[in-house]
């Protein structure tokens, strides 16, 4: 099997993006699939500060979120979670971008960016809370400056653009970053968000993880040009980056963030990656995609790539590997414990986290519901209520 060093997808892959209109451009790549650090005249500058220590920690984060993913998938198979959307194969795109953000930046993601959530410091139990069906939302967005995952495809891009308009009004230099997939670029919401972002030149980064499959729909059916080239139609500058190269992703994200902070408006990043697992645990990708394609992409695995880079640099010691593994196991253990010991929600919890300020209408409903619940335990009370009807 031949490995193509550009990372554009194997020649045998039926789903590699083809560009009949000649719009194709090269991926930004700083590390090849075999772990060789290649220089880039423009982007080297943006990762010049990354030390060996930081490289090791990027490797650790990517390994940890893969472990989280594996554990959550197992929890679903064991009946502990109703559903889980695996991120296998997209670790570099999530860690490379997530680690580039500042604390005061704000993330609006889809449901697959659990690695980004990990970078934001989300409590691991909160990651699985929604997927267990225990709450309609996992965490306080303002605690970690990341909105809870959006299930509606692409809707979060509008939220990000709106938030960015707020940042602009405040005169702040933070940035709204929104994550979405290749399929979302075909949604009206994403297009509207890009129109508004360009019109108002707001500080927002559109981070599109092109994982090649919108569930069973290959990206080539949705776009006859590269997704990054769609941004030009909105007047938004774009970058096309090797999404399995954590350094390149970090560099591209920093370029976009810097532009936004300095009033340069939105940027569209297409991180070319691959969803190596199913769309969700309820999906079977073998029904619609070629095993050869998966094999091609496995050769470009983001974690193997950074491991190979570390090895070339002599950093991939047994000590590091053991340390990373221990960390990953501990995180997975914590998440499992948090998941399986999570108390069931109380019926009245449904009224929580709806309005931040008191709402008389909701209070009334809550009061009715509380009395309704009480009627189960107190038949006498229910009778009198019945009589009042």
């Amino acid at each position: 099997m031949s490995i193509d060093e550009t990372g554009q997808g194997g020649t045998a892959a039926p789903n590699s993006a083809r560009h009949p209109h000649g719009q194709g451009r090269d991926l930004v790549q700083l590390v090849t699939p075999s772990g060789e650090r290649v220089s880039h005249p423009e982007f080297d500058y943006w990762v010049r500060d990354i030390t060996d220590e930081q490289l090791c920690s990027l490797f650790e984060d990517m390994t940890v979120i893969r472990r989280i993913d594996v554990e959550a998938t197992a929890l679903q198979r064991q009946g502990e979670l109703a559903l889980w959307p695996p991120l296998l194969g997209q670790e570099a795109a999530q860690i490379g971008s997530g680690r580039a953000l500042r604390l005061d930046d704000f993330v609006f993601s889809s449901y697959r960016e659990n690695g980004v959530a990990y970078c934001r410091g989300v409590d691991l139990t909160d990651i699985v809370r929604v997927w267990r069906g225990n709450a309609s939302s996992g965490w306080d967005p303002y605690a970690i400056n990341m909105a809870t995952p959006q299930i509606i495809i692409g809707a979060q891009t509008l939220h990000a653009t709106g938030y960015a308009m707020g940042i602009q009004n405040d005169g702040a230099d933070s940035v709204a970053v929104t994550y979405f997939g290749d399929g979302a670029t075909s949604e009206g919401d994403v297009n509207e968000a890009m129109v508004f972002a360009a019109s108002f030149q707001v500080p927002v980064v559109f981070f599109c993880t092109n994982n090649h499959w919108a569930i069973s729909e290959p990206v080539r059916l949705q776009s006859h040009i590269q997704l990054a080239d769609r941004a030009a139609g909105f007047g938004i500058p774009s970058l096309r980056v090797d999404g399995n190269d954590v350094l390149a992703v970090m560099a591209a994200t920093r370029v976009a963030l810097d532009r936004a902070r300095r009033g340069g408006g939105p940027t569209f990043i297409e991180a070319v990656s691959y969803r190596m697992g199913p769309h969700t645990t309820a999906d079977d990708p073998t029904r619609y995609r070629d095993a050869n394609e998966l094999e091609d992409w496995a050769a470009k695995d983001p974690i193997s790539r950074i491991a190979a880079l570390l090895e070339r640099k002599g950093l991939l010691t047994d000590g590091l590997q053991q340390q990373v593994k221990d960390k990953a196991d501990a995180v997975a253990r914590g998440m499992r414990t948090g998941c399986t010991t999570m108390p069931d929600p109380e019926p009245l919890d449904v009224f929580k986290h709806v309005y931040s300020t008191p709402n008389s209408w909701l209070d009334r409903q809550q009061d009715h519901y509380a009395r309704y619940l009480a009627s189960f335990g107190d038949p006498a009370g229910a009778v009198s209520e019945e009589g009042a009807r």
Partner: protein
Amino acid sequence: MIKEFRLPDLGEGLTESEILNWRVGVGDTVTLNQVIAEVETAKAVVELPSPFAGVIKELHEQPGTVVEVGKPIVSFEVADDAGQAASGPANLSAGAGEPAQLVGQGVADAPKREPNLVGYGAVVESTSRPARRQRNLPGGRPAETNAAQAAPPVAGPAETKPAAKPAETTTERPRSTPPVRKLARDLGVDLAEVHGTGPRGLITREDVQEFLHPLAAPAGTEPADPGQTVPGSRQDASVRETRTPIKGVRKFTAAAMVQSAFTAPHATEFLTVDVTPAMELLAKLRDSREFAGVKLTPLTLAAKAVLIALRRSPALNSRWDGENQEIVAYNYVNLGIAAATPRGLTVPNIKDADGLSLVQLAEALAALAETARAGRTAPGDLSGGTISITNIGVFGIDAGTPILNPGEAAILALGAVRRTPWEYRGEIALRQVMTLSLSFDHRLVDGEQGSRFLADVGAILADPGMVLTMV
């Protein structure tokens, strides 16, 4: 201690999965998340990771078995607390036992809180929960198929639109409130049997308790066995309505109608014909010596017309044998005639009616009607019919959608013969007009065959001389 692993819902809203193979055997030691089995759902083949670290104690299901979500599939011998910390993260906390319980939620632990995982307990039947859903089938499912066929009731005179019948019984549940429903469920009371005294028939808590009063079961006591609740017999309710247990002919009729209406796709066609010539022929025959003392009615001629038309459209005299995946074409005709009897609707049939002359047929029809009304029809005459006629015209009705006698391919409803302004030789004249309604099993009979048969019957009644072209 022993831990059970119950089959989880592996997709969103799946109710069952097939065990493809076990990757472990009894006695094997497994670690947390070690793959123990491969399972195929409607959506995908997935590997099942072990939820425990321990020793496989028992495999409850064989490979190739389709297992309902929530059923235990494997038991583990799991070390007690001391060993657990080392073996797996799941066992670190007090919640070690939790997983298996969660998996089965909504299935085994029905009386507890509703499942809180998406898709859980979705459509699992045979749970103790949805008593209210089972009410939909009047008289039970036709597991009594045989019995139903032994005494086949069919769409009959009174049932102009019998299709509405089963639908009616499946519509709204009795009006009540959730707490009262819960009370009723806890007490084993079927709300369908309770008369509501609240606004617009709302069933109140008092109604339920009053219903149960003879049994003296105050709220909150042990749930009574639903089977023990006695129907009917409440003083004030009995004034406003009468309750009759569903049994006997009514029960069979209901089962047969439900079975027929929901297995055989019915198509109905209507034809309105000027039967004046047939009525004139009847009058002539009544005066003839051969028919002296024989009861002749439009039904007699219609029956004969059906028997003649069947020769040209044999598909209407056949049966769908789903069990053997065969179509059974009868080389004889047992002609069923729907009869209203004091016990209810019955459909006795005339054996080998195709071999009878008109006189014999007329005599057989008269005898059949008399026997049926007297309630003395022999069981043998109630089974084995191959096609039926229902004479709704005697009730002054013109047309309707008859429901097939189960197992038969066609049923013809005869409407009333009315003097009606009708086109006759280029003018409007008062003619004797009748509407024929034919329902047929569209699995067996196409529109072409059904239409041709109906047209033939109509042609014979409109001009009996047309028989000459058909025999």
